[in-house]
């Protein structure tokens, strides 16, 4: 252990994004107190500035990669990739929330501050190189998200959502923490690389039962966070109840970060026992896809439908984890990026369409959107086609890459079942398109406002990203390929 505990300047710089986010989050809280009622829209701009600076900080950190703070954090390509991703999701969420909060008359600085804190937590998660940091990052991210889920505190649905999320979430984190305690007891370290070293050394490796138990406990924690079966039950209730921009955020940002640590822990620390945990992931992946897709078939509430769809997509990503290979890691990275854009896009359209009090959240309410707001409908169609996995969209290429990884790892049956699952999934996405284009407008179209500027920026940006990732995936894939090797 080093004599000097003072971190060097280079190490501080590697922590720049988190620092910026925390500073700006706190700044917004202060500014919130200083600005009068009803004049808080500009705080959203401050939040955007903070996020953009954090993105810049990510670049700065990446210019000098390496470990920080006694190897508690590790700035590598993988961390940088996910930092960028969660910050981007943060930007999209803030942009989409400005109009939403104004409409709900809930404009205040806390919301933006919480988003920044949550993103900061996710940044810590994806950079963490040892289990305690993972836990701390996860808690920062989760606690902010619990509050965000119940942000409109007068709305019953919000309350239900936040309470469920909080109770089940803390339960799951407890599992994770228990798993961490076990592995620490068994190996005497919480550093991922060290755990790996101990586990792969036959002379000092603890009994398999011990490793298995700790891995299983941590799997429960992670599976909950990524909403993988059989720990997915919370997701539909939470996504349905939370404010729509928050649902967008929850389904993309925290989930991406959770997948990032899931993968990092299992691909580094538990990699020596991969042949033991891979079958568990295999089963969980199949169950997640199947449950998500088949339950989504029955939904009439569009937020709930998207929640189940997000479970199904978590299942596809689990397929790539089950492949436990470098290409599998690339696939997860690419898919999370593609998924973030298409899913946030879809949720934001819902947020726009739902109107005050989220009155219109049934799929049938979208009837005739193709005639009343052709541009909105076209953008949503792009997101839905990407979710289905139609070529020339990011969703297709991501899915293609996942199943390529799976076939590489000889998971033939999982691939076949997964692809058939995605054909099932096409049905419920198509139903939304059916309603939008093939049905005549009803009363739900009466007072539909045009898209707010922020919402427009999110939708166009996400649609563009979805298409670019589908037509020219190399923009992200090359970086993912270079950084996926660094995981170990």
């Amino acid at each position, binding site marked *: 252990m080093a004599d000097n505990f003072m971190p060097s300047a280079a190490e501080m710089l590697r922590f720049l994004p988190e620092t910026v986010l925390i500073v700006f989050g706190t700044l917004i809280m202060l500014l919130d107190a200083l600005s009068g009622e009803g004049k808080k829209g500009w705080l959203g701009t401050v939040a955007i500035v903070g996020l953009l600076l954090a993105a810049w900080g990510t670049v700065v950190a990446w210019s000098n990669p390496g470990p920080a703070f006694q190897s508690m954090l590790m700035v590598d390509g993988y961390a940088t990739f996910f930092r960028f991703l969660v910050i981007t999701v943060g930007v999209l969420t803030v942009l989409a929330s400005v109009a939403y909060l104004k409409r709900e008359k809930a404009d205040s600085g806390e919301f933006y501050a919480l988003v920044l804190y949550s993103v900061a937590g996710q940044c810590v998660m994806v950079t963490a190189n040892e289990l305690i940091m993972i836990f701390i990052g996860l808690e920062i991210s989760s606690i902010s998200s619990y509050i965000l889920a119940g942000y409109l505190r007068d709305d019953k649905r919000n309350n239900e959502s936040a309470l469920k999320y909080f109770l089940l979430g803390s339960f799951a984190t407890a599992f994770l923490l228990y798993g961490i305690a076990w592995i620490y007891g068994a190996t005497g370290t919480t550093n991922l690389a060290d755990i790996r070293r101990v586990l792969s050394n036959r002379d000092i490796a603890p009994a398999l039962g011990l490793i298995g138990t700790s891995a299983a406990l941590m799997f429960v924690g992670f599976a909950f966070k990524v909403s993988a079966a059989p720990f997915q039950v919370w997701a539909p209730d939470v996504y349905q109840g939370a404010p729509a921009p928050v649902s967008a955020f929850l389904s993309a940002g925290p989930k991406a970060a959770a997948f990032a640590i899931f993968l990092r822990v299992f691909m580094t620390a538990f990699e020596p026992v991969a042949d033991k945990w891979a079958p568990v992931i295999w089963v969980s992946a199949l169950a997640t896809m199947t449950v998500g897709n088949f339950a989504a078939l029955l939904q009439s509430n569009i937020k709930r439908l998207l929640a189940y769809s997000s479970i199904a997509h978590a299942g596809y990503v689990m397929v790539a984890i089950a492949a436990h290979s470098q290409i599998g890691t690339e696939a997860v990275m690419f898919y999370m990026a593609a998924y973030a854009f298409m899913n946030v896009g879809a949720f934001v359209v819902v947020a726009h369409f739902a109107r005050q009090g989220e009155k219109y959240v049934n799929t049938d309410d979208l009837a005739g959107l193709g005639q009343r707001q052709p541009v909105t409908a076209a953008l949503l169609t792009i997101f839905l086609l990407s979710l289905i996995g139609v*070529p*020339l969209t990011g969703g297709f290429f991501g899915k293609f890459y996942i199943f*390529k990884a799976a076939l590489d790892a000889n998971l033939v049956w999982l691939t076949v079942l997964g692809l058939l699952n995605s054909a099932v999934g096409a049905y419920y996405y198509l139903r939304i398109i059916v309603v939008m284009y093939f049905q005549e407008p009803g009363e739900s179209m009466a007072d539909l406002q045009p898209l707010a500027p922020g919402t427009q920026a999110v939708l166009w940006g996400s649609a563009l990203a979805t298409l670019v990732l589908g037509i020219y995936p190399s923009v992200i894939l*090359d970086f993912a*390929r270079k950084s996926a090797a660094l995981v170990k």
Partner: protein
Amino acid sequence: MNLLNLVLALPLAGFLVTLVLPKNNANVIRLFALILSLAVFVLSLGLAAPFHETGNGNWFVTDVPWIQSPEIRYHVGLDGLSLWLVLLSTLLTPVSILVSWKYIDRRVKEFYAFLLLLEFGLIGVFVAWDLFLFYVFWEVSLVPMYFLIGVWGHERRIYAAVKFFLYTMAGSVLMLAAIIFLYNKAGTFDYVNLVDLLQRGRLVLTSQEQLLLFLAFFVAFAIKVPLFPLHTWLPDAHVEAPTAGSIMLAAVMLKMGCYGLVRFCLPMFPQAAHRCQSWIVILAIIGIIYGALVAMVQPNMKKLVAYSSVSHLGFVVLGVFSFTQNGLDGAVYQMLNHGISTGALFMLVGYLYERTHSLEIKDYGGVSTPAPLLATVFLITMLASIGLPTLNNFVGEYLVLQGSAAVNFNWTIAAAVGVILSACYMLWLYQRVFVGETNKSLSHHHPFLDMNGRELAAALPLVVLMVWMGVYTKTFLPMVSAANQRIIEQSKTGVETLVETQGGKRIAELRELVHGR
């Protein structure tokens, strides 16, 4: 940018331009789509030029990297097999636009935009030589057709559109799995490379692998063809689609499946194809007879034509899986014939529908009295569809029957029954609709008008082609044969007991006896 790329890119550009055209001036949009698609057609005629000089080869090849890793290339090219299918697509698009001129009166802009996007996808499918690229076009063509059926179709359009999409999607995801599997084995998506590797034994698939890969591709194509018993989406989609949708669907989209069988299933998995031959042929023959019998009892004209498609496409599959030069030539010729004659039938049924808003046969009768021109064109088309000599279908059916006779004469007999049945349902249809007492309800609302200039202009090229392809096959067949010859060569790899003739079969049996199985 060579001519093929231009022909491929223009419809896409047209799609994008149509999207930004102002939507209140419908005629500008129609005119734009028509002029653009005619320009594409005229340009695409130039694609035939090198074939007329040399008769064979791969032309207009573009091969540039698209995605670095996994290595996906934009590899397109044209051989005798693709050439006519591309021309069929470029011809039928302006025809469909003309047909829809009056009929489509709401959401005009989106309609023509989707039609042009469809053309882009269809051309792409026929020229892609990279499996990934092929899959991309295959799926892309699905989306516009889904909207064409779903937005502008008849009463049960939503059911039909979703069924159409899901059937195709379910089949094609397995093909995607097979494509990825091949890539992981061979390290390339390139069709030419893959076939080359397989031919030279550099890429060896176990017989089980080959069988599974073959089936994955085959099911995707068989759904699209459609082969009995995977055909159930077709009558729904055809009946519910607007006229232009039915034309494009029948004339070109079904050919995607047939084309895939010839292009991919045979050269890449010859042993598996031979192993499955008898099963597939039996299904094809069932399709021929079943389609014809069901067509005979349909009270709805569009449904009748749709089931006749099932029957006609059975011939295509039979020809392909005879593995003979004649059979394959006939199959490809039959694809084009079916495109033209069934496309024309759907168009004429569409004309009738526009006049009376009914597809029921019983609502018609004696139409030839008020509309002699329509009746004449219908008569020619119907005779072509039956397979009357000097008209196009005869050539294709004859070649298919000859090809199958060389393998197993029982197949020929069974398939020929289908030809007889097709005469039954078509002639009976013509009799009930066009001759006899003029149905009073015909001119109930408006006087029943004959074809106008626009309608004739859309129909005439198809009628000309029916005669041309029936009497002067030399324009079309040589390049098809040349391409097929290569495919037959390729599909002999690793197939020991190739059965060419009855005698050959005997020899093969003897050889099996000698080798003791």
